[in-house]
């Protein structure tokens, strides 16, 4: 898959040549490399540098004060979210945080009880159909027709997305190439592997070249190799200037793909920034991992809270955040750079994959 892109000029290097895109990609790559080396936010900033503070007319997605209830359960509870055009925006949160409901409200498949939503500038839900025409959706759950072939499925969606008749075949071929499914074009979905089905779902959402793509937990349940393939695919989308909103509960996915990450918990955004910014703001620069028996770790944890240190259990160790500020009184342990998982746990109090 990666090879296929490279031969058609979708390898990353091919993007380093032109203008704004060049700088954005360059910074993005820099961020990934230097994220834990305490580079100042502004130097590693990505498109998120342009994150507006108020509502912006150029935002791809704008949600303010959005509330969605299901009976007694409030799934989304006063959500404010602004996704600028042209970035890969990660919505990171544990299961049940309200990510999928948020995604469904963006296609008007769920209607907000309160608040305002606009997608690509179209007010929801009144103009949702127009917005859906110009965006692509990749659902969390496989909803492919198992009896149809890859080509048939893409053909149906080329119709639904109003791809002109004369361009339909080309669009289908292009989508098959994106998903690396050309040799499987005539295979019925039931006979595809899980990874192929997921790639077909992505291809289906891209058949009409949307300028915004919603990816709901794109790699959940996939094995590592397939996950890598999809990451390459998503990164290619972003590199081509498509706005991507991706929900995930995988820290690594958000860290590697997203220019900006919003951490969602209990139906609202509790923090937002580049992964580097989030780490520094909520976990500091360095983390001290102290190892010991469960009893020792218990005692250490109590000591940490007496000293006012933020700490969490991390497998066989106790991770103490903001270890850069220790002056000689630190317990013995291994110092490592803080990461997004530290920040996430500090923010939500929940362990995550």
């Amino acid at each position: 898959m990666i090879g296929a892109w490279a031969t058609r000029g979708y390898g990353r290097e091919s993007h380093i040549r032109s203008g704004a895109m060049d700088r954005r990609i360059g910074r993005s790559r820099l961020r990934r490399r230097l994220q834990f080396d305490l580079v100042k936010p502004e130097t590693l900033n990505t498109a998120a540098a342009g994150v507006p503070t108020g509502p912006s007319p150029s935002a791809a997605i704008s949600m303010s004060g959005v509330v969605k209830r299901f009976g007694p359960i409030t799934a989304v509870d006063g959500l404010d979210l602004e996704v600028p055009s042209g970035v890969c925006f990660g919505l990171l949160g544990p299961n049940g945080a309200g990510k999928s409901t948020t995604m469904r409200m963006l296609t008007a498949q769920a209607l907000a009880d309160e608040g305002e939503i606009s997608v690509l500038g179209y007010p929801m839900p009144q103009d949702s159909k127009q917005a859906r025409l110009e965006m692509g959706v990749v659902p969390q759950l496989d909803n492919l027709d198992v009896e149809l072939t890859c080509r048939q499925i893409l053909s149906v969606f080329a119709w639904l997305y109003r791809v002109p008749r004369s361009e339909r075949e080309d669009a289908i071929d292009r989508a098959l190439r994106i998903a690396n499914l050309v040799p499987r074009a005539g295979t019925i979905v039931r006979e595809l592997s899980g990874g192929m089905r997921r790639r077909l779902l992505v291809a289906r959402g891209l058949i009409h070249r949307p300028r915004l793509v919603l990816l709901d937990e794109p790699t959940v349940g996939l094995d590592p190799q397939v996950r890598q393939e999809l990451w390459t695919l998503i990164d290619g989308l972003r590199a081509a200037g498509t706005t991507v909103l991706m929900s995930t509960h995988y820290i690594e996915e958000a860290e590697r793909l997203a220019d900006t990450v919003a951490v969602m918990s209990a139906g609202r955004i509790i923090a937002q920034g580049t992964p580097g910014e989030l780490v520094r703001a909520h976990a500091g620069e360095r983390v001290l991992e102290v190892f010991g028996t469960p009893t020792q770790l218990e005692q250490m944890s109590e000591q940490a809270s007496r000293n006012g240190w933020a700490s969490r259990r991390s497998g066989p160790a106790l991770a103490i955040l903001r270890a850069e500020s220790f002056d000689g009184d630190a317990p013995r342990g291994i110092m490592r750079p803080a990461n997004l998982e530290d920040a996430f746990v500090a923010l939500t109090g929940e362990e995550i994959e």
Partner: protein
Amino acid sequence: MSFETGTTRPSVAGEPAAVGEPAAGVRRVGRLEPAALAGVMSRDVAIFGRNWRSTTFSSIVQPTVYLLAFGLGLGTLIARVQHVSYVQYVATGVVATAILFSSAFPGMFNTFVRWQFQRTYDAILAAPVDVEELVTAEVLWISLRASVYGLAPLLVGIAFGLPPEVGMLLVVPIGFVTGFGFACFGVAIAAVAKTIDNFSYITSAVLTPLFLVAGTFFPISKATNEGLWVAAQFNPLYHCVELVRNATFGDLGPGDLYHAAVLIVFALLMWRLAVSQLGRRLID
């Protein structure tokens, strides 16, 4: 090619499309768009291409069995009903049964399976298709099919001596309107059903009486049983049977406008009911 921007939309960050207006070259979508209907139906056609044998088999064999059992079985006891032989009488009546079964059942089961089990409707509604278009397209396809399947009992009847009539071709539009109404009825039932097992209540308590008290197997006349006749006026299938019989035997008259009107009103009412009921369930 792959990810680069198409001519239909602006691409790079910082160069967004005019907000709130379709990007250059992107058209405005309207209500009940033919393209959306065709898209949903193209899926039905593709699936039909895979399972047309089984679908067609059951839609043709079932009414044929009724026709043989009642027509030939009871036909030995009953020589003529009204002015035709009993087998011809039943052949025309069973047309309505064929239409009912090939519209109400797909309306119920397809809808439930695609919505609940396969989540196909979730996928379709994430595209620029609304519930009204989805329901309309699904039902249009079912009723087109039902209108063709409605001809099957007549073909069998012709084999048993039913004289071919040009008026028989009217079975297609009659079947289409009736099928549309019953397919919508099925969709509405699927939307309110908690589980797929609940369909058996509808089948036994609603559909079976409907097709038995429709003048399919015995005449319903005001003179002999007024109560039944009044009840039949509320049964769309009765009006379908009357229309089919009059068309087939060349007896169409002004009274058939009444039957046609009832069928059209039934179809329209069920259509709105199906859209609203399924809409309530598909959109959270």
